[in-house]
Protein backbone atom coordinates (compact mmCIF):
# COMPACT_ATOMS: atom_id res chain seq x y z
CA UNK A 1 0.00 0.00 0.00
CA UNK A 2 2.80 2.36 0.98
CA UNK A 3 4.59 1.48 -2.23
CA UNK A 4 1.54 2.38 -4.28
CA UNK A 5 1.15 5.72 -2.47
CA UNK A 6 4.83 6.43 -3.13
CA UNK A 7 4.42 5.65 -6.85
CA UNK A 8 1.35 7.88 -6.89
CA UNK A 9 3.51 10.76 -5.65
CA UNK A 10 6.16 10.09 -8.31
CA UNK A 11 3.36 10.00 -10.87
CA UNK A 12 1.93 13.30 -9.69
CA UNK A 13 5.32 15.01 -10.05
CA UNK A 14 5.94 13.51 -13.49
CA UNK A 15 2.35 14.27 -14.50
CA UNK A 16 2.73 17.94 -13.53
CA UNK A 17 5.81 18.27 -15.72
CA UNK A 18 4.20 16.44 -18.64
CA UNK A 19 1.09 18.63 -18.28
CA UNK A 20 3.07 21.84 -18.85
CA UNK A 21 4.43 20.41 -22.10
CA UNK A 22 1.14 18.88 -23.18
CA UNK A 23 -0.78 22.15 -22.73
CA UNK A 24 1.67 23.85 -25.08
CA UNK A 25 1.46 21.09 -27.68
CA UNK A 26 -2.31 21.17 -27.43
CA UNK A 27 -2.54 24.96 -27.77
CA UNK A 28 -0.23 24.97 -30.79
CA UNK A 29 -2.24 22.21 -32.39
CA UNK A 30 -5.48 24.03 -31.70
CA UNK A 31 -4.31 27.33 -33.18
CA UNK A 32 -1.88 26.25 -35.92
CA UNK A 33 -3.14 22.73 -36.66
CA UNK A 34 0.21 20.97 -36.58
CA UNK A 35 1.98 18.62 -34.19
CA UNK A 36 4.97 20.52 -32.82
CA UNK A 37 7.76 17.98 -32.56
CA UNK A 38 10.33 20.47 -31.29
CA UNK A 39 8.45 20.95 -28.04
CA UNK A 40 10.59 18.60 -25.98
CA UNK A 41 13.73 20.38 -27.07
CA UNK A 42 12.17 23.74 -26.22
CA UNK A 43 11.80 22.35 -22.69
CA UNK A 44 15.45 21.36 -22.66
CA UNK A 45 16.41 24.85 -23.82
CA UNK A 46 14.44 26.39 -20.96
CA UNK A 47 16.23 24.17 -18.46
CA UNK A 48 19.62 25.23 -19.82
CA UNK A 49 18.70 28.93 -19.84
CA UNK A 50 18.01 28.58 -16.12
CA UNK A 51 21.35 26.82 -15.73
CA UNK A 52 23.04 29.75 -17.45
CA UNK A 53 21.36 32.05 -14.93
CA UNK A 54 22.32 29.97 -11.88
CA UNK A 55 25.78 28.72 -12.75
CA UNK A 56 26.81 31.37 -15.28
CA UNK A 57 25.52 34.61 -13.74
CA UNK A 58 25.16 33.48 -10.13
CA UNK A 59 21.49 34.45 -9.97
CA UNK A 60 19.21 33.01 -7.30
CA UNK A 61 17.03 30.15 -8.53
CA UNK A 62 13.85 32.20 -8.76
CA UNK A 63 15.47 34.92 -10.87
CA UNK A 64 17.07 32.30 -13.10
CA UNK A 65 13.67 30.67 -13.49
CA UNK A 66 12.12 33.97 -14.60
CA UNK A 67 15.01 34.54 -16.99
CA UNK A 68 14.50 31.08 -18.49
CA UNK A 69 10.78 31.70 -19.03
CA UNK A 70 11.39 34.99 -20.82
CA UNK A 71 14.31 33.74 -22.92
CA UNK A 72 12.54 30.55 -24.01
CA UNK A 73 9.36 32.44 -24.89
CA UNK A 74 11.47 34.79 -27.01
CA UNK A 75 13.16 31.88 -28.80
CA UNK A 76 9.80 30.22 -29.30
CA UNK A 77 8.34 33.31 -30.99
CA UNK A 78 11.59 33.85 -32.88
CA UNK A 79 11.47 30.38 -34.42
CA UNK A 80 7.90 30.98 -35.49
CA UNK A 81 8.73 34.33 -37.10
CA UNK A 82 11.89 33.06 -38.80
CA UNK A 83 10.57 29.72 -40.00
CA UNK A 84 7.05 28.51 -39.28
CA UNK A 85 5.48 31.80 -40.43
CA UNK A 86 7.05 31.25 -43.86
CA UNK A 87 5.54 27.78 -44.07
CA UNK A 88 2.07 28.78 -42.89
CA UNK A 89 0.62 28.38 -46.40
CA UNK A 90 2.05 24.86 -46.80
CA UNK A 91 0.22 21.80 -45.58
CA UNK A 92 0.40 21.29 -41.79
CA UNK A 93 2.41 18.15 -42.47
CA UNK A 94 5.27 20.24 -43.89
CA UNK A 95 5.27 22.26 -40.67
CA UNK A 96 5.51 19.00 -38.75
CA UNK A 97 8.57 17.90 -40.74
CA UNK A 98 10.06 21.34 -40.30
CA UNK A 99 9.58 21.09 -36.53
CA UNK A 100 11.51 17.80 -36.50
CA UNK A 101 14.38 19.74 -38.06
CA UNK A 102 14.00 22.49 -35.45
CA UNK A 103 14.11 19.86 -32.70
CA UNK A 104 17.50 18.63 -33.89
CA UNK A 105 18.82 22.15 -34.45
CA UNK A 106 17.86 23.30 -30.94
CA UNK A 107 19.42 20.18 -29.47
CA UNK A 108 22.67 20.67 -31.38
CA UNK A 109 22.91 24.28 -30.23
CA UNK A 110 22.48 23.09 -26.63
CA UNK A 111 25.23 20.52 -27.15
CA UNK A 112 27.53 23.10 -28.68
CA UNK A 113 27.01 25.69 -25.94
CA UNK A 114 26.68 23.53 -22.82
CA UNK A 115 28.28 20.22 -23.88
CA UNK A 116 26.76 16.74 -23.95
CA UNK A 117 27.24 15.77 -20.28
CA UNK A 118 24.80 15.66 -17.38
CA UNK A 119 24.63 18.83 -15.30
CA UNK A 120 22.78 19.91 -12.15
CA UNK A 121 21.53 23.22 -10.74
CA UNK A 122 23.02 22.87 -7.27
CA UNK A 123 25.36 20.28 -5.89
CA UNK A 124 24.84 18.61 -2.54
CA UNK A 125 22.24 16.03 -1.69
CA UNK A 126 18.89 17.22 -0.43
CA UNK A 127 17.49 14.83 2.14
CA UNK A 128 13.89 13.86 1.43
CA UNK A 129 11.31 14.38 4.14
CA UNK A 130 9.78 11.23 5.53
CA UNK A 131 6.04 11.72 5.99
CA UNK A 132 4.19 8.70 7.31
CA UNK A 133 6.72 6.38 5.70
CA UNK A 134 6.58 8.21 2.35
CA UNK A 135 9.64 9.89 0.90
CA UNK A 136 8.92 13.40 -0.33
CA UNK A 137 11.61 15.65 -1.76
CA UNK A 138 11.07 19.36 -0.93
CA UNK A 139 11.42 20.37 -4.59
CA UNK A 140 8.46 18.18 -5.51
CA UNK A 141 6.16 20.59 -3.66
CA UNK A 142 7.70 23.38 -5.71
CA UNK A 143 7.17 21.46 -8.95
CA UNK A 144 3.57 20.45 -8.32
CA UNK A 145 2.71 23.82 -6.78
CA UNK A 146 4.46 25.78 -9.54
CA UNK A 147 2.78 23.76 -12.28
CA UNK A 148 -0.62 24.23 -10.63
CA UNK A 149 -0.05 27.99 -10.30
CA UNK A 150 0.86 28.28 -13.98
CA UNK A 151 -2.24 26.32 -14.93
CA UNK A 152 -4.46 28.61 -12.84
CA UNK A 153 -2.87 31.63 -14.53
CA UNK A 154 -3.48 30.09 -17.94
CA UNK A 155 -7.07 29.36 -17.02
CA UNK A 156 -7.61 32.98 -15.97
CA UNK A 157 -6.01 34.14 -19.20
CA UNK A 158 -8.11 31.90 -21.43
CA UNK A 159 -11.40 32.64 -19.68
CA UNK A 160 -11.19 36.27 -18.70
CA UNK A 161 -9.05 38.20 -21.18
CA UNK A 162 -10.04 39.29 -24.67
CA UNK A 163 -6.94 37.64 -26.07
CA UNK A 164 -7.67 34.39 -24.30
CA UNK A 165 -11.18 34.36 -25.68
CA UNK A 166 -9.85 35.13 -29.15
CA UNK A 167 -7.48 32.21 -28.76
CA UNK A 168 -10.28 29.83 -27.89
CA UNK A 169 -12.38 31.17 -30.72
CA UNK A 170 -9.54 30.60 -33.17
CA UNK A 171 -9.02 27.06 -31.93
CA UNK A 172 -12.72 26.35 -32.46
CA UNK A 173 -13.01 27.86 -35.92
CA UNK A 174 -10.13 29.81 -37.49
CA UNK A 175 -12.12 31.13 -40.45
CA UNK A 176 -14.95 32.39 -38.30
CA UNK A 177 -12.41 33.98 -35.94
CA UNK A 178 -10.75 35.79 -38.84
CA UNK A 179 -13.96 37.20 -40.33
CA UNK A 180 -15.12 38.37 -36.92
CA UNK A 181 -12.10 40.65 -36.81
CA UNK A 182 -9.67 38.72 -34.60
CA UNK A 183 -6.06 39.56 -35.36
CA UNK A 184 -4.97 35.99 -35.97
CA UNK A 185 -1.23 36.70 -36.24
CA UNK A 186 -1.33 38.32 -32.82
CA UNK A 187 -3.06 35.23 -31.42
CA UNK A 188 -0.36 33.07 -33.04
CA UNK A 189 2.42 35.07 -31.37
CA UNK A 190 0.74 34.80 -27.98
CA UNK A 191 0.32 31.06 -28.49
CA UNK A 192 4.06 30.67 -28.96
CA UNK A 193 4.78 32.94 -25.99
CA UNK A 194 2.60 30.85 -23.70
CA UNK A 195 3.85 27.55 -25.08
CA UNK A 196 7.45 28.77 -24.63
CA UNK A 197 6.86 29.86 -21.02
CA UNK A 198 5.19 26.57 -20.08
CA UNK A 199 7.89 24.53 -21.84
CA UNK A 200 10.65 26.41 -20.02
CA UNK A 201 8.91 25.84 -16.70
CA UNK A 202 8.64 22.12 -17.45
CA UNK A 203 12.34 21.97 -18.37
CA UNK A 204 13.35 23.84 -15.21
CA UNK A 205 11.27 21.47 -13.09
CA UNK A 206 12.92 18.41 -14.64
CA UNK A 207 16.30 19.96 -13.86
CA UNK A 208 15.18 20.67 -10.31
CA UNK A 209 13.97 17.09 -9.81
CA UNK A 210 16.84 15.22 -11.50
CA UNK A 211 19.51 16.58 -13.83
CA UNK A 212 20.00 18.30 -17.15
CA UNK A 213 21.17 16.74 -20.38
CA UNK A 214 20.58 17.58 -24.04
CA UNK A 215 17.96 14.86 -24.57
CA UNK A 216 15.96 15.35 -21.36
CA UNK A 217 13.08 17.05 -23.19
CA UNK A 218 13.12 14.85 -26.25
CA UNK A 219 12.65 11.81 -24.03
CA UNK A 220 9.42 13.32 -22.73
CA UNK A 221 7.99 14.06 -26.18
CA UNK A 222 6.15 10.77 -26.44
CA UNK A 223 4.43 11.06 -23.03
CA UNK A 224 3.58 14.69 -23.84
CA UNK A 225 1.86 13.77 -27.09
CA UNK A 226 0.20 10.82 -25.40
CA UNK A 227 -1.19 13.21 -22.76
CA UNK A 228 -2.33 15.76 -25.36
CA UNK A 229 -4.09 13.06 -27.38
CA UNK A 230 -5.61 11.50 -24.29
CA UNK A 231 -7.10 14.86 -23.39
CA UNK A 232 -8.31 15.40 -26.93
CA UNK A 233 -5.65 17.27 -28.90
CA UNK A 234 -6.36 21.00 -29.17
CA UNK A 235 -7.94 21.08 -25.69
CA UNK A 236 -5.57 22.46 -23.06
CA UNK A 237 -7.77 21.41 -20.12
CA UNK A 238 -7.97 17.85 -21.38
CA UNK A 239 -4.18 17.83 -21.71
CA UNK A 240 -3.83 18.41 -17.95
CA UNK A 241 -6.01 15.41 -17.12
CA UNK A 242 -4.26 13.34 -19.79
CA UNK A 243 -0.87 14.24 -18.34
CA UNK A 244 -1.81 13.12 -14.85
CA UNK A 245 -3.12 9.81 -16.20
CA UNK A 246 0.06 9.25 -18.24
CA UNK A 247 2.39 10.29 -15.42
CA UNK A 248 0.73 8.07 -12.82
CA UNK A 249 0.34 5.15 -15.25
CA UNK A 250 4.04 5.29 -16.16
CA UNK A 251 5.13 5.17 -12.52
CA UNK A 252 2.55 2.53 -11.53
CA UNK A 253 3.65 0.34 -14.42
CA UNK A 254 6.94 -0.33 -12.63
CA UNK A 255 4.97 -2.62 -10.31
CA UNK A 256 4.47 -5.08 -13.17
CA UNK A 257 7.03 -4.37 -15.91
CA UNK A 258 10.71 -3.52 -16.03
CA UNK A 259 11.32 0.21 -15.44
CA UNK A 260 13.32 0.35 -18.68
CA UNK A 261 10.08 -0.05 -20.60
CA UNK A 262 8.31 2.85 -18.88
CA UNK A 263 8.17 4.95 -22.09
CA UNK A 264 6.29 2.09 -23.76
CA UNK A 265 3.40 2.56 -21.32
CA UNK A 266 2.64 6.07 -22.55
CA UNK A 267 2.82 4.73 -26.07
CA UNK A 268 0.43 1.86 -25.39
CA UNK A 269 -2.12 4.15 -23.72
CA UNK A 270 -1.85 6.58 -26.63
CA UNK A 271 -2.38 3.91 -29.27
CA UNK A 272 -5.32 2.40 -27.41
CA UNK A 273 -6.83 5.86 -27.13
CA UNK A 274 -6.28 6.67 -30.80
CA UNK A 275 -7.89 3.45 -31.91
CA UNK A 276 -10.93 3.51 -29.65
CA UNK A 277 -11.56 7.15 -28.90
CA UNK A 278 -9.51 9.48 -31.10
CA UNK A 279 -11.30 12.60 -29.79
CA UNK A 280 -9.89 12.10 -26.31
CA UNK A 281 -11.27 11.28 -22.90
CA UNK A 282 -13.76 14.13 -22.85
CA UNK A 283 -14.12 14.60 -26.58
CA UNK A 284 -17.23 14.61 -28.66
CA UNK A 285 -16.05 16.69 -31.59
CA UNK A 286 -14.61 14.84 -34.54
CA UNK A 287 -10.83 14.72 -34.26
Amino acid at each position, binding site marked *: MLEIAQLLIYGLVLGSIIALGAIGVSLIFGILRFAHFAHGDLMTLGAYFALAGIAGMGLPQLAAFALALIATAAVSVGIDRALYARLRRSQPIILLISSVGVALMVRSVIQMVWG*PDNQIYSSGIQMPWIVGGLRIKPQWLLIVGGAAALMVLLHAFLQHTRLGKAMRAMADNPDLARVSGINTERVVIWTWLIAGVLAAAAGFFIGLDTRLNPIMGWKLLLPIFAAAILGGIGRPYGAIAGALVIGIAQEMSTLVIEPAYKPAVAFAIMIAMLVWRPTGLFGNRTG
Partner: protein
Amino acid sequence: MDLLGLFGYLTFFLSMAAIYAVLALGLNLQWGYTGQLNIGVAAFFAVGAYTAAIATTAPSANHLGGFALPFVAGLVLAMLIAGILALVVGLITLRLRTDYLAIATIGIAEIVRLVLKNEAWLTNGVRGIPSIPRPFAGGSGIADNIAYLGVIVAITALVYLGMQRLFASPWSRVLRGIRTNEDAVTAAGKNVLRFRVEAFVIGSMIMGLGGALYAHFSGFISPGAFDPMFATFVVWVMLIAGGSGNNRGAILGALVIWAVWTLSETLAGALPGDLGSRAPALRIFLIGLLLEIILVTRPQGILPERPPRAIDRSADEQR
Protein backbone atom coordinates in the same frame (compact mmCIF):
# COMPACT_ATOMS: atom_id res chain seq x y z
CA MET B 1 46.21 10.53 -49.31
CA ASP B 2 47.68 7.98 -51.71
CA LEU B 3 45.73 6.58 -54.62
CA LEU B 4 44.90 3.30 -52.92
CA GLY B 5 43.62 5.12 -49.86
CA LEU B 6 41.50 7.40 -52.01
CA PHE B 7 40.12 4.38 -53.82
CA GLY B 8 39.29 2.71 -50.53
CA TYR B 9 37.59 5.84 -49.30
CA LEU B 10 35.58 6.11 -52.48
CA THR B 11 34.43 2.51 -52.06
CA PHE B 12 33.31 3.26 -48.50
CA PHE B 13 31.56 6.43 -49.61
CA LEU B 14 29.64 4.78 -52.44
CA SER B 15 28.65 1.77 -50.32
CA MET B 16 27.09 3.97 -47.64
CA ALA B 17 25.46 6.24 -50.23
CA ALA B 18 23.86 3.19 -51.90
CA ILE B 19 22.58 1.89 -48.55
CA TYR B 20 21.07 5.31 -47.82
CA ALA B 21 19.58 5.31 -51.32
CA VAL B 22 17.75 2.05 -50.49
CA LEU B 23 16.34 3.65 -47.33
CA ALA B 24 15.32 6.79 -49.20
CA LEU B 25 13.58 4.68 -51.87
CA GLY B 26 11.63 2.84 -49.16
CA LEU B 27 10.63 6.14 -47.58
CA ASN B 28 9.68 7.49 -51.00
CA LEU B 29 7.06 4.77 -51.35
CA GLN B 30 5.58 5.76 -47.98
CA TRP B 31 5.93 9.53 -48.04
CA GLY B 32 6.53 10.41 -51.70
CA TYR B 33 3.85 8.16 -53.17
CA THR B 34 1.33 7.83 -50.36
CA GLY B 35 1.93 10.78 -48.02
CA GLN B 36 2.58 8.64 -44.93
CA LEU B 37 4.71 10.30 -42.30
CA ASN B 38 7.03 7.59 -40.97
CA ILE B 39 9.41 9.08 -38.40
CA GLY B 40 10.47 5.59 -37.36
CA VAL B 41 12.70 4.74 -40.32
CA ALA B 42 15.43 3.78 -37.85
CA ALA B 43 13.19 1.10 -36.33
CA PHE B 44 12.77 -0.83 -39.57
CA PHE B 45 16.39 -0.25 -40.48
CA ALA B 46 17.51 -1.65 -37.11
CA VAL B 47 15.13 -4.62 -37.26
CA GLY B 48 16.49 -5.51 -40.72
CA ALA B 49 20.08 -5.15 -39.59
CA TYR B 50 19.61 -7.27 -36.48
CA THR B 51 17.64 -9.93 -38.33
CA ALA B 52 20.35 -10.28 -40.95
CA ALA B 53 23.04 -10.35 -38.27
CA ILE B 54 21.31 -13.04 -36.20
CA ALA B 55 20.53 -15.10 -39.30
CA THR B 56 23.99 -15.12 -40.84
CA THR B 57 26.51 -15.07 -37.96
CA ALA B 58 28.06 -18.25 -36.61
CA PRO B 59 26.32 -19.75 -33.54
CA SER B 60 27.02 -17.66 -30.45
CA ALA B 61 26.19 -17.93 -26.77
CA ASN B 62 25.80 -14.13 -26.51
CA HIS B 63 22.63 -13.67 -28.53
CA LEU B 64 19.91 -15.60 -30.31
CA GLY B 65 21.36 -17.89 -33.00
CA GLY B 66 23.38 -17.20 -35.03
CA PHE B 67 22.07 -19.51 -37.58
CA ALA B 68 24.93 -19.27 -40.10
CA LEU B 69 22.46 -18.93 -42.97
CA PRO B 70 23.58 -17.74 -46.39
CA PHE B 71 23.65 -14.02 -47.23
CA VAL B 72 20.55 -14.06 -49.42
CA ALA B 73 18.50 -15.89 -46.76
CA GLY B 74 19.50 -13.14 -44.32
CA LEU B 75 18.27 -10.45 -46.72
CA VAL B 76 14.95 -12.22 -47.26
CA LEU B 77 14.44 -12.74 -43.53
CA ALA B 78 15.33 -9.12 -42.80
CA MET B 79 12.67 -7.95 -45.24
CA LEU B 80 10.19 -10.46 -43.85
CA ILE B 81 10.61 -9.46 -40.19
CA ALA B 82 10.59 -5.74 -41.00
CA GLY B 83 7.47 -6.37 -43.08
CA ILE B 84 5.72 -8.23 -40.26
CA LEU B 85 6.52 -5.41 -37.82
CA ALA B 86 5.16 -2.90 -40.35
CA LEU B 87 2.03 -4.99 -40.87
CA VAL B 88 1.26 -5.07 -37.15
CA VAL B 89 2.00 -1.37 -36.72
CA GLY B 90 0.21 -0.47 -39.93
CA LEU B 91 -3.00 -2.33 -39.21
CA ILE B 92 -3.33 -0.45 -35.92
CA THR B 93 -2.16 3.02 -36.90
CA LEU B 94 -2.88 3.53 -40.59
CA ARG B 95 -6.54 4.26 -39.93
CA LEU B 96 -5.36 7.34 -38.09
CA ARG B 97 -4.62 10.76 -39.45
CA THR B 98 -1.11 11.08 -40.77
CA ASP B 99 0.17 13.30 -37.94
CA TYR B 100 -0.95 10.66 -35.45
CA LEU B 101 0.92 8.08 -37.54
CA ALA B 102 4.04 10.24 -37.17
CA ILE B 103 3.74 10.19 -33.39
CA ALA B 104 3.04 6.45 -33.39
CA THR B 105 6.13 5.69 -35.49
CA ILE B 106 8.28 7.65 -33.04
CA GLY B 107 6.91 5.35 -30.36
CA ILE B 108 7.73 2.27 -32.42
CA ALA B 109 11.29 3.48 -32.96
CA GLU B 110 11.67 4.10 -29.23
CA ILE B 111 10.32 0.66 -28.30
CA VAL B 112 12.53 -1.10 -30.85
CA ARG B 113 15.51 0.76 -29.39
CA LEU B 114 14.55 -0.27 -25.85
CA VAL B 115 14.19 -3.91 -26.90
CA LEU B 116 17.57 -3.93 -28.69
CA LYS B 117 19.21 -2.43 -25.63
CA ASN B 118 17.52 -4.47 -22.90
CA GLU B 119 16.83 -7.93 -24.34
CA ALA B 120 20.37 -9.23 -24.20
CA TRP B 121 19.34 -12.84 -24.90
CA LEU B 122 18.18 -11.68 -28.32
CA THR B 123 20.66 -8.99 -29.30
CA ASN B 124 23.55 -9.14 -26.81
CA GLY B 125 22.34 -5.75 -25.51
CA VAL B 126 24.63 -2.77 -25.70
CA ARG B 127 27.66 -4.94 -26.53
CA GLY B 128 26.19 -5.58 -29.98
CA ILE B 129 26.76 -8.33 -32.51
CA PRO B 130 30.25 -8.65 -34.01
CA SER B 131 31.74 -10.56 -36.98
CA ILE B 132 28.80 -10.40 -39.34
CA PRO B 133 30.08 -12.12 -42.50
CA ARG B 134 30.12 -10.60 -45.97
CA PRO B 135 29.40 -12.36 -49.23
CA PHE B 136 32.37 -12.93 -51.58
CA ALA B 137 34.77 -12.35 -48.69
CA GLY B 138 38.14 -14.03 -48.42
CA GLY B 139 40.32 -11.93 -50.70
CA SER B 140 42.28 -8.90 -49.63
CA GLY B 141 40.46 -6.17 -47.71
CA ILE B 142 40.06 -3.84 -50.64
CA ALA B 143 38.94 -6.54 -53.10
CA ASP B 144 36.32 -7.62 -50.56
CA ASN B 145 35.09 -4.07 -50.21
CA ILE B 146 34.77 -3.61 -53.95
CA ALA B 147 32.98 -6.94 -54.39
CA TYR B 148 30.50 -6.00 -51.68
CA LEU B 149 30.03 -2.55 -53.17
CA GLY B 150 29.05 -4.36 -56.37
CA VAL B 151 26.46 -6.38 -54.43
CA ILE B 152 25.00 -3.27 -52.76
CA VAL B 153 24.84 -1.32 -56.01
CA ALA B 154 23.20 -4.23 -57.82
CA ILE B 155 20.54 -4.54 -55.10
CA THR B 156 19.98 -0.78 -55.06
CA ALA B 157 19.50 -0.88 -58.83
CA LEU B 158 16.97 -3.71 -58.45
CA VAL B 159 15.05 -1.75 -55.81
CA TYR B 160 15.11 1.31 -58.07
CA LEU B 161 13.79 -0.62 -61.07
CA GLY B 162 11.08 -2.19 -58.94
CA MET B 163 10.06 1.20 -57.60
CA GLN B 164 9.98 2.68 -61.12
CA ARG B 165 7.79 -0.19 -62.26
CA LEU B 166 5.48 0.42 -59.29
CA PHE B 167 5.42 4.15 -59.97
CA ALA B 168 3.96 3.57 -63.43
CA SER B 169 1.42 1.05 -62.15
CA PRO B 170 -2.26 1.62 -61.44
CA TRP B 171 -1.48 0.57 -57.88
CA SER B 172 0.69 3.59 -57.18
CA ARG B 173 -1.82 5.80 -58.97
CA VAL B 174 -4.25 4.84 -56.23
CA LEU B 175 -1.56 5.68 -53.65
CA ARG B 176 -1.06 9.13 -55.15
CA GLY B 177 -4.83 9.50 -55.18
CA ILE B 178 -4.92 8.74 -51.46
CA ARG B 179 -2.20 11.31 -50.92
CA THR B 180 -4.05 14.08 -52.75
CA ASN B 181 -7.68 13.29 -52.05
CA GLU B 182 -8.51 10.35 -49.89
CA ASP B 183 -12.28 10.88 -50.04
CA ALA B 184 -12.29 10.73 -53.81
CA VAL B 185 -10.43 7.42 -53.75
CA THR B 186 -12.88 6.02 -51.20
CA ALA B 187 -15.74 7.23 -53.37
CA ALA B 188 -14.18 5.43 -56.33
CA GLY B 189 -14.65 2.21 -54.39
CA LYS B 190 -11.06 1.53 -53.39
CA ASN B 191 -10.22 0.00 -50.04
CA VAL B 192 -8.01 2.85 -48.82
CA LEU B 193 -6.80 1.04 -45.71
CA ARG B 194 -5.58 -1.93 -47.75
CA PHE B 195 -3.57 0.25 -50.12
CA ARG B 196 -2.11 2.19 -47.22
CA VAL B 197 -1.04 -0.96 -45.39
CA GLU B 198 0.47 -2.37 -48.59
CA ALA B 199 2.51 0.77 -49.22
CA PHE B 200 3.62 0.98 -45.59
CA VAL B 201 4.65 -2.70 -45.45
CA ILE B 202 6.54 -2.70 -48.76
CA GLY B 203 8.29 0.56 -47.89
CA SER B 204 9.32 -0.83 -44.49
CA MET B 205 10.54 -4.07 -46.09
CA ILE B 206 12.83 -2.01 -48.32
CA MET B 207 14.12 -0.21 -45.21
CA GLY B 208 14.71 -3.62 -43.59
CA LEU B 209 16.70 -4.61 -46.68
CA GLY B 210 18.77 -1.45 -46.28
CA GLY B 211 19.43 -2.43 -42.67
CA ALA B 212 20.59 -5.90 -43.70
CA LEU B 213 22.96 -4.44 -46.29
CA TYR B 214 24.35 -2.13 -43.63
CA ALA B 215 24.88 -4.96 -41.12
CA HIS B 216 27.01 -6.92 -43.60
CA PHE B 217 28.81 -3.75 -44.64
CA SER B 218 29.87 -2.66 -41.16
CA GLY B 219 30.35 -6.20 -39.80
CA PHE B 220 29.35 -5.04 -36.31
CA ILE B 221 26.07 -3.60 -35.06
CA SER B 222 24.98 -2.28 -31.66
CA PRO B 223 22.08 -0.12 -30.47
CA GLY B 224 24.46 2.84 -30.50
CA ALA B 225 24.59 2.66 -34.30
CA PHE B 226 20.88 3.45 -34.54
CA ASP B 227 20.37 6.81 -32.89
CA PRO B 228 16.70 6.76 -33.79
CA MET B 229 16.38 10.46 -34.41
CA PHE B 230 19.43 10.98 -36.50
CA ALA B 231 19.19 7.86 -38.66
CA THR B 232 15.59 8.71 -39.49
CA PHE B 233 16.17 12.39 -39.94
CA VAL B 234 19.02 12.09 -42.39
CA VAL B 235 16.95 9.82 -44.66
CA TRP B 236 14.15 12.36 -44.57
CA VAL B 237 16.50 15.17 -45.54
CA MET B 238 17.82 13.03 -48.40
CA LEU B 239 14.36 12.34 -49.79
CA ILE B 240 13.11 15.91 -49.43
CA ALA B 241 16.30 17.38 -50.88
CA GLY B 242 16.32 14.96 -53.80
CA GLY B 243 12.63 15.26 -54.52
CA SER B 244 9.76 13.42 -52.82
CA GLY B 245 7.85 11.22 -55.21
CA ASN B 246 10.78 10.92 -57.61
CA ASN B 247 12.90 7.76 -57.35
CA ARG B 248 15.86 9.29 -59.16
CA GLY B 249 15.51 12.20 -56.77
CA ALA B 250 15.66 9.85 -53.79
CA ILE B 251 18.92 8.33 -55.06
CA LEU B 252 20.38 11.71 -55.98
CA GLY B 253 19.39 13.09 -52.58
CA ALA B 254 21.11 10.17 -50.84
CA LEU B 255 24.31 10.83 -52.82
CA VAL B 256 24.29 14.60 -52.35
CA ILE B 257 23.40 14.65 -48.65
CA TRP B 258 25.81 11.82 -47.86
CA ALA B 259 28.51 13.79 -49.71
CA VAL B 260 27.67 16.95 -47.75
CA TRP B 261 27.69 14.92 -44.53
CA THR B 262 31.08 13.27 -45.12
CA LEU B 263 32.58 16.49 -46.43
CA SER B 264 31.44 18.32 -43.29
CA GLU B 265 33.18 15.61 -41.25
CA THR B 266 36.44 16.28 -43.06
CA LEU B 267 36.06 20.01 -42.54
CA ALA B 268 35.11 19.54 -38.87
CA GLY B 269 38.20 17.38 -38.38
CA ALA B 270 40.29 20.37 -39.39
CA LEU B 271 38.83 22.55 -36.63
CA PRO B 272 41.19 23.23 -33.73
CA GLY B 273 40.95 21.37 -30.41
CA ASP B 274 37.92 22.45 -28.41
CA LEU B 275 35.87 23.40 -31.46
CA GLY B 276 36.56 19.98 -32.94
CA SER B 277 34.88 18.23 -30.01
CA ARG B 278 31.69 20.21 -30.62
CA ALA B 279 31.78 19.61 -34.37
CA PRO B 280 29.34 16.66 -34.46
CA ALA B 281 26.58 18.88 -33.02
CA LEU B 282 27.45 21.63 -35.47
CA ARG B 283 27.13 19.21 -38.37
CA ILE B 284 23.67 18.09 -37.24
CA PHE B 285 22.69 21.74 -36.88
CA LEU B 286 23.78 22.47 -40.44
CA ILE B 287 21.88 19.46 -41.84
CA GLY B 288 18.79 20.72 -40.00
CA LEU B 289 19.31 24.20 -41.41
CA LEU B 290 19.67 22.73 -44.90
CA LEU B 291 16.32 20.96 -44.51
CA GLU B 292 14.59 24.19 -43.42
CA ILE B 293 16.09 26.10 -46.33
CA ILE B 294 14.87 23.46 -48.77
CA LEU B 295 11.39 23.41 -47.21
CA VAL B 296 11.09 27.19 -47.48
CA THR B 297 12.72 27.77 -50.86
CA ARG B 298 12.33 24.58 -52.88
CA PRO B 299 9.91 22.14 -51.21
CA GLN B 300 9.70 19.99 -54.34
CA GLY B 301 13.41 19.10 -54.13
CA ILE B 302 16.14 18.96 -56.79
CA LEU B 303 14.19 16.61 -59.06
CA PRO B 304 10.48 17.31 -58.64
CA GLU B 305 7.93 14.55 -58.96
CA ARG B 306 6.79 13.96 -62.51
CA PRO B 307 3.65 12.00 -63.31
CA PRO B 308 4.46 8.77 -65.12
CA ARG B 309 4.13 8.54 -68.88
CA ALA B 310 0.78 7.46 -70.25
CA ILE B 311 0.09 3.96 -69.05
CA ASP B 312 -0.63 1.40 -71.71
CA ARG B 313 -4.17 0.16 -71.60
CA SER B 314 -3.34 -3.52 -71.14
CA ALA B 315 -1.83 -2.81 -67.75
CA ASP B 316 -4.85 -0.74 -66.86
CA GLU B 317 -7.30 -3.54 -67.46
CA GLN B 318 -5.61 -5.92 -65.06
CA ARG B 319 -7.15 -4.19 -62.05
